[in-house]
């Protein structure tokens, strides 16, 4: 994330502050050996509104790599998506981007 310098003067003292944007939060879905692949695709489509191709790619990433990053952005929305995925029966967590 790029920092935007902010410069102000207070009397004779020059003050420079850097405004930093927060790192995004990632929503992670974890693999399990029981969930049918088509169910994962349907849940991704319903929750995120992604295309069928994108949902299938994400499902295969979960299946082959054990986990997949399915959404990235602000913390509140990440938590909300994580809750929706868990309510739908998929194992999911959030983590802040490194």
């Amino acid at each position, binding site marked *: 994330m790029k920092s935007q310098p902010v410069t102000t003067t207070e009397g004779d003292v020059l003050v420079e502050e850097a405004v930093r944007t927060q790192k995004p939060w990632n929503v992670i879905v974890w693999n399990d050996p029981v*969930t049918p692949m088509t169910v994962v695709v349907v849940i991704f489509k319903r929750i995120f509104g992604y295309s069928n191709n994108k949902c299938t790619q994400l499902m295969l990433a979960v299946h082959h790599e054990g986990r997949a990053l399915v959404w990235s952005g602000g913390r509140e929305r990440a938590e909300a998506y994580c809750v929706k995925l868990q*309510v739908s029966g998929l194992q999911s967590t959030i983590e802040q981007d490194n």
Partner: protein
Amino acid sequence: MPGGKLFVRRRDGRIEVRINDYGRTLVRGAFANVLAAERDPDHEWHLALSGPIDPSLDRDDPLSMLAREKDTSTNAELAGLSVDEQFLNDTEAWAWLTTLQVTLRSVAQTKGLLTDEQLAASDEEVLTYVRSLQQFLFQLADCF
């Protein structure tokens, strides 16, 4: 299990449920168990329903946990109320799908079925239950 499709999307948008008495009994039990697990902290499945949202925190955001509990209960309640219906609307069918999937994940977690090998080595009764749930889910997902 009978042959043919268990769930069929009709032209009027509703989903016809064609499962037999055994299937109805199985899903009725699944819906009741999810609801009971959500409400009873001592239920075998309760921990499976309340996994962490952010593992780096000791305590997750209470509002997120509340939203999860409320939504899970709502889905399980709606699924339970419509368990004997022959035709489901979209909201009811989604409640069935999510509650059956929550059931499947809860069974997998409580029985320690976390890998393909553990699943293959599980006892016959558990395996039959898991396969039945998977069959329902597979066919119901095809309607969306």
